[in-house]
């Protein structure tokens, strides 16, 4: 197994704005993340942090450059391989939780496993175990709108872990939460990292940056040394 899990080489992202000048939001990004690292990405609003991790997480494509995951160039993958990557290798946690509103907590956590055709009984067991571990054992049949923000984010974390991914990408996971819940979630991410998972965390909060072993600062679409 190679030591580098993610390698970004000369990635640019440009939005065509029609009549006005194109908007270049990522410029010449080069970044290598080692297996088991905990990286915090920080920088001013609008600097391109989300854009960058979306490209790393195969949700978006770069305009130029290559992204390697386990030495494989994901910019060249087919749609269905990318979908599998999003389901199996990467776990995403969003600021707005992004749970499916008409499914229960349990069903939301089971969905990534069912998408890659896991056995239903096994998926259910895994989902229950994860939800219990996140302190939601008594809330598994609740719909997202019957849960508090912190509870919803914990369901989202359980979902991101469903297929036991190698990389966790968390884009301001505590942005909408109070500091106590935020601390619980950060501690949980820290624990995941000490169990060997690679964690990429976007945050504005300087208090949270301290959880990371490495900080990447982005400004105006460039990584500042």
């Amino acid at each position: 197994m190679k030591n580098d899990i993610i390698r970004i080489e000369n990635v640019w992202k440009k939005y065509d704005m029609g009549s006005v000048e194109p908007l270049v939001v990522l410029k010449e990004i080069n970044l290598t993340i080692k297996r088991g690292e905990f990286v915090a990405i920080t920088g001013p609003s609008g600097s391109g942090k989300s854009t960058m991790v979306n490209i790393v997480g195969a949700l978006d494509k770069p305009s130029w450059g290559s992204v390697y995951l386990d030495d494989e160039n994901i910019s060249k993958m087919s749609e269905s391989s990318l979908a599998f990557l999003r389901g199996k290798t990467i776990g995403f946690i969003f600021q707005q939780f992004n749970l499916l509103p008409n499914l229960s907590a349990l069903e939301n956590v089971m969905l990534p496993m069912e998408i890659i055709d896991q056995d239903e009984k096994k998926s259910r067991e895994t989902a229950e175990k994860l939800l219990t571990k996140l302190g939601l054992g008594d809330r598994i049949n609740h719909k997202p709108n019957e849960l508090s923000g912190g509870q919803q984010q914990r369901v989202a974390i359980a979902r991101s872990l469903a297929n036991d991914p190698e990389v966790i990408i968390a884009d301001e996971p505590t942005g909408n939460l109070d500091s106590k819940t935020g601390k619980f979630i950060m501690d949980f991410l820290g624990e995941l990292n000490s169990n060997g998972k690679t964690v990429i965390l976007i945050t504005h909060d300087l208090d949270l940056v301290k959880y990371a072993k490495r900080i990447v600062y982005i400004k105006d679409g460039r990584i500042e040394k």
Partner: protein
Amino acid sequence: MKLKKCFNLAWNILIHSKLRSWLTIIGIIIGIAAVVSIISISQGAQQQLEDRLGSLGADILTVSPGFSKASGPMGGFREGPMDSDSDSSDEQKNLTVKDVLVLKNLDNVKYVMGQVSGKGEMTYLSKTASVSVTGVDESVWKDITYDELASGRFLVQSDFFSVVLGGRLVETTFENKIPLNGKITIEGKSFKVVGILADGNGVYMPLDIARTVLEDVGEEEFSSISVKIEDVEIANETVGLIEKKLMFSRGILNEKNVDFSVSNPSEMQATIQETTQTMSLFLGAIAAISLLVGAIGIANTMFTSVLEKTKEIGIMKAIGAKNKDVLLIFLLNSGMIGLVGGLGGIILGVFGSTLIGYWGSTLSGGESRMFGSTALTPELLIGALLFSLIIGMIAGAIPAYRASKLNPVDALRYQ
């Protein structure tokens, strides 16, 4: 993703759908209901028509003496020679035993019956009336006739001075006074009533007896010949065959000398059927338009539903759903909308057509019971369901395809 899971998710979307989707479903319900009831009503009307025409004897051709076409000789010639064995005589105008024998062996001919008819005075107790008397061949009459018995029996070969009376004659003309096995008098001769028909004004008696009762009817001669055929579909061919054979046996070489005519009731039927088919087609077209409107409704609902679900599609893609999973979920969803609409439409359509059938039969008071019955065949119901499912899927195809092609980040950013 497994089909079952896609199905569950599609179902989940359906049951959580907004009022708008249910309004679309109502559109489909009305469309399908209209189609189901229109088809069942027009099929029922057609069936009814066929039954009634059948009871008039669609399969009975009648050969009568004389030529009915304008260019031919008019009327029957009752004064023809008594001896029918002297054939190939140009003067022979009436129908004879020989003609009956000729017809008996033709293709598609089931029964042949010669009959004589005329007017006679009938008396029961003090009441006297002029009636139409028909002499029938006792051996085939009950096989050929569409009349039904109200009481008693048809004539049999051992009958001599026995009659069967038309029901209306008994009920109306003789005011219900004639009992079964009662004695009546016709042209001075006494008869026993062995049967009474459900309907009609006629008096039926054995051929030979009728010949003695009626004037102007020679031995071995018939006023008309009824031919019952096997297959109504080829009635026209059979008419042609009968004409050819009779012309040959009667020694007629030229068409304009033909001294008999053959009636074909199925021709008239065909005209009537054409009319009802045109009517069904017209009503069906209206129903099809309402279905089309329903389908556009589904497409519209699907487009907005996909738009509403954009964020959820983004979420599903972010956790690993492939394009084809999303496509399948939304196709199944629109198929379900169609199917639910179809089910509702069938229920409403069955209800509606039954109601119309009920009204039809009570309003028209039994006489012209055109819409008095409806035909709800399993084929129609299954067809309607399949049709609504397919309409749903076609209407949902483009929106579902668009949903599947959404870029995950763009979909996630959608508010």
